[in-house]
């Protein structure tokens, strides 16, 4: 009965979405306040009904209701409860339902918390959001119904892919979707503004909190996915330029550009068309991601089940939303008024460079990801691979100049910056960076030039960011209580910026250390075997059998010593899931700030070695890899700090004061 209730609730949600698609926007053009305000009720209605639907599906999973096809395909009675719950969104249908749930929650949030947004803009935005809602709910109801029944019900389910039975990965989709959906709201705002024919600094200010929230969540989602891949897939890698990774990365790149472009629009009224275009493109790229993952267009480790029928439907959605919004842009954007003037050396210019580099990087990743498709189409069926070597060679050289500009940017003042003065202030930072890089060069035993160049830029970014923040609070220049006062009075978004930029530098240390200076040992081991790596002495004690709720495991035991002192015991495992008929490697890692000692065991491929009772032991030492996770956390925290800025909550001033010609440097 509950699944039917869930199904019906979705249909009701669709009905509300259809109403919301029409009434508010019509009301906005006719000035009918009642119709515009109907959006509040329809958005609340949507969220309630979709939540009922979601709850019904979750209940089916938790109670292992095997009359529901989705539960059969993705769950098992022995699965731990946490993963039963996570199974709700572990499939194509379920994840769509999660998507729609988050979409309706955001829609309701706009209607409830957007008190200071003008009625017409709010109404139009909510209507656009409802169009997206209608698109996704109909997609679900017509092609991907999570509540399909199966009769007769099987005795048990087929279990969730064991790789997905992991806490980190369970949270990865929700975080990503909050990101994508958040950008859909910004998209809705942008389309609404184009329809209204007006984009101004106030609009940019209203859009900022949503952009920040979406960006934070997307950052966290991508980082979580990387972290999961790192400890689960067994060889210490965290990014593979897989098509599905790329399609989550592109919205992030565009979203970062959007965030910065919106700042310029808010402070100086410039970059209006850019910001609108970025808002449209960021969400378009999220939709593209949805399309690629669910339609079987490209091969990927990640893809959900291949189904061209679904693919056609999503393509239709894409055509309407992306095509429509870009057409609207082509028509209305030229009418937007130009904004403030600025000189080639100024903060605006720096942000322009920032956006251009990010846009180029996005274009490169997009082209590389889709090229196999273009190639196949144009050559009549021949296949091609575009892998990490291409992406690394194209992407990294773009990012390095960006990092340089990031360090420089906060020193530039709006409209017109004094380059000589800026360079003067940065002299110390530059010298420090070079010296520190030389120190790194002495400490490490050689490496590629690109590695050291990256180190130089990472140190530069960190030092420049910290120094700029210190200068702002006059740290060490004035008595500490005075600095503390300044810290408190500085707008949170300033702290947010410094935290985020520093976070990227920190993450860079992790990127560089773990890829350039990684070492590895792979050996056949029997109980008693000893291996040395990076100053550690590791003894393989043996393997014993262990058991989990829905798996068997061979658990290896490793004693780790350094200079004859005991450091730790590590237990990598090989797990076999009988129902799902697959195995996973559970690595065991010892993490310190200096680096990760990463261990995993496997059955040897060679039969002779296997017959002798040997195991393949793989140990990696990845320097500084933990800083990737620390750095990305700092990025998210920085976003959070900015989001909590009081000014964002007060909102735009009720009456537009004339913009001052010269704004103080922020």
């Amino acid at each position: 009965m509950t699944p039917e209730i869930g199904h019906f609730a979705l249909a009701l949600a669709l009905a509300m979405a259809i109403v919301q698609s029409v009434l508010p926007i019509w009301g906005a053009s006719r000035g009918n306040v009642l119709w515009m305000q109907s959006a509040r009720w329809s958005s609340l209605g949507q969220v309630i009904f979709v939540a009922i639907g979601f709850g019904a599906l979750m209940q089916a999973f938790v109670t292992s209701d095997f009359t529901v096809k989705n539960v059969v395909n993705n769950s098992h009675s022995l699965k731990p409860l946490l993963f039963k719950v996570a199974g709700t969104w572990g499939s194509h249908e379920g994840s769509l339902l999660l998507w729609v749930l988050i979409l309706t929650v955001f829609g309701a949030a706009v209607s409830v918390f957007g008190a200071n947004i003008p009625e017409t803009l709010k109404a139009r935005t909510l209507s656009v959001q409802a169009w997206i809602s209608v698109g996704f709910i109909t997609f679900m109801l017509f092609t991907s119904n999570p509540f399909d029944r199966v009769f007769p019900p099987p005795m048990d389910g087929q279990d969730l892919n064991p790789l997905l039975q992991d806490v980190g990965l369970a949270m990865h989709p929700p975080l990503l979707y909050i990101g994508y959906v958040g950008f859909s709201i910004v998209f809705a705002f942008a389309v609404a503004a184009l329809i209204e024919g007006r984009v101004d600094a106030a609009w940019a200010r209203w859009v900022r909190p949503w952009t920040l929230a979406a960006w934070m969540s997307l950052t966290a989602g991508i980082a979580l996915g990387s972290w999961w891949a790192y400890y689960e897939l067994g060889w210490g890698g965290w990014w593979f330029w897989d098509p599905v990774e790329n399609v989550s990365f592109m919205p992030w790149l565009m979203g970062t550009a959007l965030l910065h472009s919106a700042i310029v629009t808010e402070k100086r009224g410039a970059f209006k068309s850019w910001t609108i275009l970025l808002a449209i493109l960021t969400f378009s790229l999220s939709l593209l991601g949805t399309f690629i993952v669910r339609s079987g267009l490209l091969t990927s480790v990640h893809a959900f089940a291949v189904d061209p029928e679904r693919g056609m439907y999503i393509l239709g959605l894409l055509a309407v939303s992306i095509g429509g919004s870009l057409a609207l842009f082509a028509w209305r954007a030229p009418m937007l008024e130009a904004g403030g003037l600025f000189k080639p050396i100024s903060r605006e210019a720096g942000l322009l460079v920032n956006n251009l580099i990010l846009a180029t990087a996005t274009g490169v990743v997009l082209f590389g990801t889709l090229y196999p498709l273009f190639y196949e189409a144009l050559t009549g069926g021949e296949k091609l691979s575009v892998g990490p070597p291409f992406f690394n060679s194209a992407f990294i050289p773009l990012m390095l100049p960006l990092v340089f500009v990031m360090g420089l940017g906060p020193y530039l003042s709006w409209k017109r910056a004094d380059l000589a003065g800026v360079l003067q202030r940065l002299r110390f930072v530059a010298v420090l960076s070079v010296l520190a890089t030389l120190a790194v060069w002495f400490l490490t035993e050689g490496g590629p030039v690109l590695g050291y160049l990256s180190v130089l830029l990472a140190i530069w970014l960190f030092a420049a960011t910290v120094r700029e923040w210190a200068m702002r609070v006059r740290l060490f220049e004035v008595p500490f209580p005075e600095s503390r006062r300044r810290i408190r009075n500085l707008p949170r978004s300033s702290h947010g910026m410094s935290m985020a930029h520093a976070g990227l530098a920190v993450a860079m240390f992790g990127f560089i250390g773990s890829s350039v200076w990684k070492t590895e040992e792979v050996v056949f081991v029997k109980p008693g075997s000893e291996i040395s790596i990076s100053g550690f002495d590791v003894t393989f004690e043996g393997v014993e059998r262990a058991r989990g709720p829905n798996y068997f495991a061979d658990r290896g035991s490793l004693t780790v010593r350094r200079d004859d002192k005991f450091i730790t015991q590590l237990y990598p495992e090989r797990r076999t899931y009988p129902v799902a008929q697959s195995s996973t490697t559970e690595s065991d890692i010892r993490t310190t700030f200096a680096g990760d000692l990463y261990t995993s065991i496997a059955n040897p491929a060679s039969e002779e070695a296997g017959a002798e009772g040997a195991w393949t032991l793989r140990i990696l030492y990845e320097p500084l890899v933990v800083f990737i996770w620390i750095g990305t956390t700092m990025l998210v925290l920085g976003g959070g700090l900015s989001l909590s800025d009081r000014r964002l909550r007060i909102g735009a001033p009720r009456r537009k004061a004339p913009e001052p010609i010269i704004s103080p440097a922020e």
Partner: protein
Amino acid sequence: MRYLIVVFFLIAPFLAQAVEPDEILQDSALELRAREISRDLRCVVCQNEDIDSSNAGVARDLRIIVREKLVAGDSDQDVLDYVQAKYGDYVLMSPPLNTRTLALWFAPPILAFIAFIVGFFVLRGAGRSRATNDLSEEDEAEVSRFIEAHKSEDQS
């Protein structure tokens, strides 16, 4: 089709980076070359993994072949050519540079160049003051008269 794919690929999902101890060459310089080459070779049965990272049977065979050829004295390019001859362009992680892949390899510099040009023009134009919508002289006069005439009303 889905059935076929599931049934055909009789491999366990992602396991550890799959180079096995019995494959590793004694000569570490050669082994290093083997690793570099392997990074460029795609495991044809897996989704987007190189042969070093895949534990598929074919991947292991290819790893062994790569090393055998290096030991026999082949150059890096010879080894890649050999595998490409058997499996086609698809097996190379970096597509070969030929007339049909020019667009791909030149895309990054071209896009960067376009960005540069755009940036250049925007920065150049952003500093200049824009033409103001000046009123014509008669309109100017009319506006002043209007203001004068209604000034007294403002005061009240």
